[in-house]
């Protein structure tokens, strides 16, 4: 009899459907990832939340994306806003509802129900609404339907019994029609919807919420229920920005990113040497923490400059300094960023963290990173986000940011400001576990001055130096110097210089002493050698004398012999005697 009675008996749709629940991509950024594919096809989803939570926009984007990106026309049954109001309110998000309506991809039907105009007498049903729905669906061949918001009927029509049974019929009818539907509902006190619509929706319930923390409102989305499929159960922050809704999944990317073996320089050669000699891994995350004025930004600027020199692109998010100020300040330490800015290799985005909420910042970074596709991203400093959110939220946001950047193979440099007092290594523990490399720049106080000391607290996947280096900012950039480590502890700055001068003096003295000793030795050697020479000369002289005497004696002997013979010859008196040897003289 009644045209809008359900044609299929209860239960049949379930057995008819295939084993796998089919899903319809919503086209809403991030949402399809949370729900592993989108909303259940051919089913009705309840989107509930308090006023201003973004229900209407969520539903509308579902339709607009369906019509423009997935070839699925849609019907919007509006109870709260007229088509004109609706069109105007989403025009700023880039949704051209008029255009979609004109091209028969979208039908908007504004249902006006006003309690003061309505009088109830006797029995009725909602067949009028069914007719309108049917007509609207047929007019565009709709695959998607949004009813925003059904609960308005409760305030306009008094008979709750009739409404409830009619709603039940409506949901079954929508299911039978095979359209994927979104019903919005206002959040009730302690319940998901004010009038308990959720009891009719068994397949999928999404809760939108807006909470204010420290005067900054953040929107959250949660999949309360999604029958027959796995889905993210967390509360996911989402944003409404110039392109519609962006849900930012915390862990949708997971820890599946590929780790690069490539190393890249930090721009400070001595620091590269401390990091296993080759610098940081490409695509890793680096945290530079330190007290104010320790040169965190300068370190980051070096990394940026070195990346730009290699022809890479860098994105710098500054939350403390303006671009002009930063460029000027960096020029004073010999890092000229202007050419890179001019060439478009470096993009600088300076804003106050309080400009908008944390999620907006994150989405902003997402958008700019996707548009610019840099290889290095610097966030300077991350700690300023604590002005707009709690530590836990900042940590969650950074985790998502790190995951996002890692999944794209982007090297991320975060600077973190630690309070002037207290344990430096504790304040950052929250975010440091997310980081692959953690550099700490710290003031080393002593002898009436403060000097910067740089430590590599950790660096995953490389044998990094355990040494403290003195960090010196000069007009030509960063220098890392060895510190003096002696019995008196670590000495830096002028103390180190004094110590070094003293050591130099000592060394010179020692050298001089050694030289002197050597000279003494040489002299002694020379002396001894001279003595040896003298003795030798003496000996030689004596020897010569003796030899001369011996020669004379020999010669005299010879002469004597000859003389004797001559005399004998002269005598010739007794040759026999002579022959007998010797004359009797």
């Amino acid at each position, binding site marked *: *009899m009644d045209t809008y009675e359900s044609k299929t008996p209860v239960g049949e749709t379930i057995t008819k459907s295939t084993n796998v629940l089919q899903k319809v991509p919503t086209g809403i950024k991030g949402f399809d990832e949370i729900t592993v594919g989108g909303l259940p096809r051919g089913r009705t989803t309840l989107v509930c939340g308090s006023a201003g939570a973004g229900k209407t926009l969520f539903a509308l984007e579902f339709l607009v994306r369906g019509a423009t990106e997935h070839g699925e026309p849609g019907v919007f049954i509006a109870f709260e806003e007229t088509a004109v109001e609706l069109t105007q309110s989403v025009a700023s998000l880039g949704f051209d509802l008029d255009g979609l309506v004109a091209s028969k991809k979208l039908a908007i039907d504004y249902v006006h129900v006003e309690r003061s*105009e*309505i*009088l109830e*007498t006797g029995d009725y049903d909602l067949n009028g*609404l069914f007719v309108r729905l049917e007509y609207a669906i047929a007019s565009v061949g709709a695959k998607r339907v949004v009813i925003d918001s059904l609960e308005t009927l409760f305030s306009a029509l008094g008979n709750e019994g009739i409404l409830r049974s009619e709603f039940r019929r409506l949901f079954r009818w929508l299911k039978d029609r095979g359209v994927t539907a979104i019903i919005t509902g206002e959040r009730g006190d302690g319940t998901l919807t004010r009038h308990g619509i959720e009891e009719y929706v068994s397949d999928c319930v999404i809760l939108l919420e807006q909470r204010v923390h420290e005067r900054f409102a953040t929107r959250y989305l949660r999949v309360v229920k999604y029958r027959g499929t796995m889905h993210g159960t967390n509360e996911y922050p989402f944003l409404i920005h110039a392109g519609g809704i962006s849900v930012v999944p915390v862990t949708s990317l997971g820890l599946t990113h590929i780790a690069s073996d490539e190393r890249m320089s930090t721009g400070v050669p001595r620091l590269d040497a401390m990091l296993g000699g080759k610098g940081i891994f490409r695509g890793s995350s680096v945290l530079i923490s330190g007290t104010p004025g320790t040169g965190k930004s300068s370190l980051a600027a070096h990394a940026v400059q070195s990346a730009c020199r290699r022809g890479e692109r860098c994105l710098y998010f500054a939350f403390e300094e303006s671009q002009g100020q930063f460029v000027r300040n960096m020029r004073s330490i010999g890092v000229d960023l202007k050419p890179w800015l001019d060439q478009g290799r470096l993009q600088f985005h300076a804003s106050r963290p309080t400009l908008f909420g944390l999620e907006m910042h994150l989405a902003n970074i997402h958008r700019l990173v996707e548009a610019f596709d840099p290889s290095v991203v610097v966030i300077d400093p991350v700690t300023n986000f604590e002005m707009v959110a709690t530590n836990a939220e900042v940590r969650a946001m950074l985790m998502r940011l790190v995951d996002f950047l890692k999944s794209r193979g982007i090297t991320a440099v975060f600077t973190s400001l630690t309070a002037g007092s207290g344990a430096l290594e504790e304040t950052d523990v929250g975010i440091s576990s997310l980081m692959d490399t953690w550099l700490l720049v710290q003031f080393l106080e002593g002898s009436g001055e403060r000097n910067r000391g740089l430590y590599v607290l950790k660096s995953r996947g490389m044998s990094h130096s355990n040494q403290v280096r003195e960090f010196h900012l000069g007009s030509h950039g960063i220098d890392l110097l060895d510190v003096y480590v002696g019995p008196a502890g670590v000495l830096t700055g002028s103390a180190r210089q004094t110590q070094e001068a003293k050591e130099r003096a000592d060394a010179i003295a020692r050298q001089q002493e050694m030289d002197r000793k050597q000279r003494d030795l040489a002299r002694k050697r020379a002396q001894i050698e001279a003595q040896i020479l003298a003795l030798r000369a003496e000996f030689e002289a004596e020897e010569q004398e003796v030899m001369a005497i011996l020669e004379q004696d020999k010669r005299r002997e010879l002469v004597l012999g000859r003389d004797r013979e001559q005399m004998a010859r002269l005598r010739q008196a007794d040759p026999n005697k002579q022959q007998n040897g010797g004359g009797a003289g």
Partner: protein
Amino acid sequence: MGGSEHDDGRNGKTPSAVVGDVDDFWAQALVDVPRETYVLRLYVVGNSPRSRGAIRNVRKLCDEHLAGRFDLEVHDLNQEPWLARDAQIVAAPTLVRERPLPVQRIIGSLSDIERVLVGLGVSPNPAVDP
């Protein structure tokens, strides 16, 4: 489906205000109002018992209490679905009083004649037993 077919059946007698005679104007206006034709539209969906009951009730009501000064049209939204949108129909059956203004909607099977009369702003005809 019944009802008189003449279009926009108002009597066309617009009270002409005489300058400086405000009292007369209001007196005239008050006399004129009850005589205005009731423009009624009944929207039903399908040939259900509820629809038939509503049609029967509204016909009876018009004949008995608005004799000669009503313009009733009955529409089946299954046949003319676009009317549901144009006339802002949600529930069925819905009786819409388009004239006199303001627009008033009475939903339901219209079984309680007295209540319907109150809703329509029609004083019951004393000659008819309710």
